[in-house]
């Protein structure tokens, strides 16, 4: 095995220090460019939502000055990165700061002199809502891949979850809709499990084929049934639930504690999957199966059963994510409405290095980009929102190209386990 992996190691290595420093400096220069091209005047950032109990005063920032300062700071970080040896946490902090500075400069530029203030709370609320299916999808990916089964079918699982939830919610109520959506995801998960584990089909191919199938099936049923029977696709949605007390905290409350039930389910899932995988007996065994199934087998762990269970559990989680697309958000099902979210969730999982917390952070980052794009498209910014929509994908390519550190999948991920 070592001969294989090392022999295939890419012959050209990227000097990470130079690339990282260079990237930071480029970001700094872009920040400064934002300052140069900003309209005169302040950018206003509102920090409360309308109707909030406590009103937090808005921030008025001199747009150009702020952008210049942040740009200079980014360049400084780049220079320090090039010439100092830094611990890993500092490197990560660098990336975070440079990205934050970039976003603030961008907003300063976009909102400089604008009559409409940017509502930061709404922006972050949007981030949370858009992140829900991504986080749940990425958690589903973690569940599968930590046990050694690659899950490219997250996209399909979201889609069937969304479809089933919308239809059943229309007929039998919202809660049953969520449960059915989850079950539909689980059903696709069990297909994935059977074909991958029992029939040893290549898991990447299988995932793609299942996505084609899910898209075809929901699209067909939509065209055939939902279009002619709108009563099956009524568009019921959950109402937001404000957590008493927590929900009234300024800024934080509306972002984290005043949303539909799906946000709270997501919190629970993040904790369950993270603690489950990394602090319990169950998780240790799952990870052993994903890393070295034969070793797990020799100590009496049932490899195939573990994989079946995890892949199906993952499907159930992704199904909830799918349900959030319909009954947690827009209500009605439309064809191919997952529109690549499953693939972004997959990317978030990889970006997050197969850990639930990392995947969540990555999903939030992607959710933020989408939310930002949605916000910017409402004001007249002379830059195409489509360019902004590319950002998560570009970021993922940069991540897998190893420019922000090596990502290592579970060793047995994607490899079927066959006994002699």
């Amino acid at each position, binding site marked *: 095995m070592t001969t294989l992996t090392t022999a295939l190691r890419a012959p050209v290595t990227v000097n990470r220090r130079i690339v990282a420093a260079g990237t930071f400096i480029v970001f700094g220069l872009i920040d400064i460019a934002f300052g140069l091209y900003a309209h005169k005047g302040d950018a206003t950032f509102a920090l409360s939502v309308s109707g909030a109990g406590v009103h937090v005063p808005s921030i008025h920032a001199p747009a150009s000055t702020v952008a210049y300062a942040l740009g200079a700071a980014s360049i400084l970080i780049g220079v320090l990165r090039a010439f100092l040896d830094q611990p890993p946490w500092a490197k990560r902090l660098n990336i975070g700061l440079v990205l934050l500075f970039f976003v603030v400069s961008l907003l300063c530029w976009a909102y400089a002199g604008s009559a409409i203030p940017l509502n930061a709370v709404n922006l972050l609320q949007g981030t949370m809502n858009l992140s829900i299916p991504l986080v749940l999808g990425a958690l589903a990916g973690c569940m599968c891949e930590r046990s050694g089964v690659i899950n490219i079918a997250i996209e399909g699982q979201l889609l069937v979850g969304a479809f089933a939830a919308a239809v059943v919610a229309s007929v039998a109520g919202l809660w049953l809709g969520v449960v059915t959506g989850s079950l539909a995801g689980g059903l696709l998960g069990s297909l994935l499990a059977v074909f991958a584990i029992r029939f040893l089909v290549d898991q990447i191919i299988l995932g793609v084929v*299942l996505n084609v199938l899910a898209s*075809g099936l929901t699209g067909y049923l939509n065209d055939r049934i939902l279009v002619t029977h709108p009563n099956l696709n009524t568009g019921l949605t959950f109402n937001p639930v404000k957590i008493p007390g927590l929900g009234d905290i300024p800024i934080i409350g509306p972002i984290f504690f005043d949303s539909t039930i799906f946000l709270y389910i997501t919190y629970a899932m993040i904790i369950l999957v993270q603690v489950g995988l990394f602090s319990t007996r169950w998780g240790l065994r799952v990870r052993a199966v994903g890393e070295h199934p034969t070793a797990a087998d020799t100590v009496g762990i049932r490899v195939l059963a573990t994989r079946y269970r995890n892949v199906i559990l993952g499907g159930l989680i992704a199904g909830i994510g799918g349900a959030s697309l319909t009954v947690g958000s827009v209500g009605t099902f439309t064809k191919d409405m997952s529109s690549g979210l499953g693939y972004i969730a997959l990317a978030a999982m990889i970006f997050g290095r197969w850990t639930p917390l990392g995947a969540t952070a990555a999903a939030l980052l992607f959710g933020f980009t989408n939310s930002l794009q949605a916000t910017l498209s409402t004001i007249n910014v002379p830059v195409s929102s489509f360019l902004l929509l590319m950002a998560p*994908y570009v970021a993922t390519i940069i991540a897998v190209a190893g420019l922000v550190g090596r990502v290592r999948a579970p060793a047995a991920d994607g490899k079927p386990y066959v006994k002699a």
Partner: protein
Amino acid sequence: MSEQPPASPSPLSAGATPADGGPPAGRRPGASFSRTILDAVVEGSPAVVTFLAFVAAVVLGGLLIAFSDTTVLHAWSQFFSAPGNAIAQAWDAAAAAYSAMFEGAILNPHTVAAAFHGGSVGAIFYPLSQTASDATPLVLTGLSVAIAFRAGLFNIGAAGQWVGGAIVATYLGFGVSLPPVVHVIVCLLGGFAGGAVIGWIVGELKARTGAHEVIVTIMLNYIMYNFLSFLLGTPKALQQPGQSNLISPPVAASARLPHVGGPPPQVDAGFLIALAAAACVWWLLARSTIGFRFRTVGANPSAARSSGMSVEKSWVLVMLIAGGLAGLAGAAVILGPVQSITFNSYGTYGFDGITVALLGRATPVGVVLAALLFGALHAGGTTMEAATQVPATLVQVLQGLIVLFVAAPPLIRAVFRLREARTAGLEAVPKGWNT
């Protein structure tokens, strides 16, 4: 490694012969021809498995047609009082849909009858020409996925490469003026180049950094979709003047692909280009040193390296070619039937290409046959939707089911009670994220 049992043919590793058209896999010596055929049937040779997968998909699709039909469902709610009626209704619904599909894809008996009564003879061939036209981009994207597959790469990015090719072809099609024949050739070459660039990025990233091509291609798809929208939404880029919609100007008449044979039984020149491309890919894979290198890299990259082949250069080159083929598909669609590109012109060509390549077992001949099958389903699907209100999206379900069954020969064997075979399955090259 001391005592390992002899390598039993894994369902994932066997399958394609070393070279299509090359020497066949070790056939038992002395087996007679008829014996070989018989074995192929009872053990489920790739061709038999493919056929049975098709049958299984059609049956499941038929059930789906029947049981999403309100009349049928109504009849089944009274199953116990009139079981015959319920079954007949279900059968009728499925049969009507499938026969409409057949008429749209292969042959419509009415046109034959009409021809005997002085109607157009050409009209008989209309469904077939439609099938060929629908198969054209599928052959090309299928080849794109297949050739990468043979070199061990899973190209999920044919969609993005399609967009890359289509953008360049469209731009050259309306943006420059050239003499008729030259213009269309330039546009086709531009399409190839546009796709090749996108494919090259994938190969280069994989070769230099080890970035997994599946992730990179998925991401590039969405990047290209958004890039297309960006161009179409930016005046002076690709947007049609005076339009607020995301649509390009139509390509010039000189850049359009001609029809061969004249209307009405017509063959789009694109189809001939696709067949030529398939022939080139076949020669490249089976008869050239480059193809030998691709196949070695795909089957065992470590051995390829030890034999002095550059695995990395092969990845770059094969992705360049794969991207080019997908780009050519984009050009063929824009210069052929569509003529203007819109924000969603890419449709499902890329993912169809994956199913085509899988069904065709990553061989050029297989790809052409699979593309014709799926092209027929597409052509028939449109007719079916018009005639019976069964949505054409059924085709995607059928496609997914066929490939799913093809990918799992043990399942097909279990369903059809075939004997265990010596060889089986799709050769699966990519395994896991860690190369």
